[in-house]
């Protein structure tokens, strides 16, 4: 079975993002970029399926600028076999990304697609579900456990208040939550080996998808700042303040 994984190039998890002074967007000039953390979990899960003999090939796909090749190479170093970059410098909204991925899936015919549940830039949490709709596949979102048996996959999902398990008929789409696994680090030999793995570049035009804007970003502002309060010196003072000043207990 072929497994397809998606990775997104986003601002590094540890970088504090700043809003541009003209409020047009956030400032991504000269900031460190990395693979979206939820995508790392997706890559790890796919590689584990291959190591367990469940998957025969892991194909990793990214959509975005030329530089997203770096994140594809990282995924290849982590154990993916082959990369595909759908290159575009335009702003690709979730729906467009889903349409492009649907075309890639049409060509690749994977049995399972594993994606991050959301990217830490736009925080949309949409693309996996949209791709599932466009391909008519079932979806196991926010997965904390994935078990493949025959042509079915059982997915345990992190839902409000607990866990839910669903069984999906493959081909299916899984989106990852934090507890699914703990991603490995790439070793130096594997990083070197990844440089020789195949990486193909396509464009939205090649895939026959028009890049269309469904939304318009009017402005981006920093969030309202909360003022720091006071320091209390003892538990006694804290209880007094909560009872008599804040009146919350």
């Amino acid at each position: 079975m072929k497994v397809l994984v998606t990775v997104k190039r986003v601002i590094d998890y540890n970088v504090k993002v700043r809003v541009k002074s003209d409020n047009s967007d956030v400032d991504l000039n000269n900031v460190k970029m990395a693979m979206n953390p939820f995508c790392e979990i997706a890559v790890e899960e796919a590689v584990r399926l291959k190591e367990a003999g469940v998957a025969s090939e892991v194909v990793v796909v990214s959509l975005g600028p030329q530089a997203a090749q770096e994140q594809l190479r990282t995924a290849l170093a982590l154990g993916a076999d082959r990369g595909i970059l759908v290159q575009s410098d335009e702003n690709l909204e979730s729906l467009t990304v889903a349409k492009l991925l649907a075309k890639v899936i049409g060509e690749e015919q994977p049995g399972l697609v594993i994606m991050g549940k959301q990217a830490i830039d736009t925080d949309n949490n949409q693309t996996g579900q949209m791709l599932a709709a466009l391909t008519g596949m079932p979806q196991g979102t926010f997965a904390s456990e994935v078990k493949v048996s025959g042509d079915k996959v059982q997915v345990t999902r992190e839902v409000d208040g607990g866990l839910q398990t669903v069984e999906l008929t493959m081909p299916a789409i899984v989106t990852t939550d934090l507890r699914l696994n703990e991603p490995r680090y790439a070793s130096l030999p594997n990083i070197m080996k990844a440089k020789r793995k195949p990486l193909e570049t396509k464009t939205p035009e090649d895939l026959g998808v028009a890049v269309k804007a469904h939304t318009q970003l009017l402005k981006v502002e920093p969030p309202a700042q909360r003022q720091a309060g006071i320091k209390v010196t003892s538990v006694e003072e804290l209880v007094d303040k909560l009872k008599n000043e804040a009146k919350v207990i």
Partner: protein
Amino acid sequence: MATLIIAEHDNQSLKGATLNAVTAATQIGGDVHILVAGAGCQGVADAAASVAGISKVLLADNAAYEHQLAENVSLLVAELGTDYSHVIAPATTAGKNLMPRVAALLDVAQLSDVIRVDSEDTFARPIYAGNAIATVKSLDAIKVITIRGTGFDAAAAEGGSAVIEAVTAVHDAGISTFIGEEMAKSDRPELTAASVIVSGGRGMGNGENFALLESLADKLGAAVGASRAAVDAGFVPNDMQVGQTGKIVAPDLYIAVGISGAIQHLAGMKDSKVIVAINKDEEAPIFSVADYGLVADLFDAVPELDGKL
């Protein structure tokens, strides 16, 4: 112009998050209808009919919708959605699972986690873990939106008298099956509904030490939460996580214990009315948002606080 709200429920009761979505719908303007899709969920429809501001309840009561599988319900909502200008749901795991699938079927975008309604087509939503707020205009004819509950007050659960209309359309995609669920059993309130929350971070040291917070929570009638660091360290399960990628909460009182205050955690709780921070590191960023900060060892301070309540 009319809005269709997707009710959050478990076939027994209408969930509170729905009421915040009703307020958002009222701010958008126009008629507000609500869809209750489930099985044996007449009681939920009755409850929805009495919510202030709703003029019609659509009741889709069929075995195919029992567990609200996105594969089936999305087909129903996409069919009904073409009669509406807005289709909205609470930004809960249920809403997040369903709504993008609906949007793609309607060939429109989705606006996630909306916290403010500016006009019928313009909305504000947090991006980059809440480090920035984007104002976005939808260019689509049908606007598919999830609503972050903390951005809107709950609508009154009583006072309305909507008509209930049965929806007979049955969609069963036949590609997914519900196997089971394991809901955390707790006498404490749910995180997103609690008026007081006690949360622990990496400073708790291990999972057993969360018993200190549970004891305190029981005195206060509070829910117990955790930072992502505490979840990542394996102290507690993910469903306790408060933060941008976990639960977004805004209780009357939030007590952060041994939490440094990473931006991703602050994004999940900074709209709380009163924030208390207990941390032994006086430089911890959590103190910059706390109304009351106590620089102390939590293993001394928490039992003492527990004893004084």
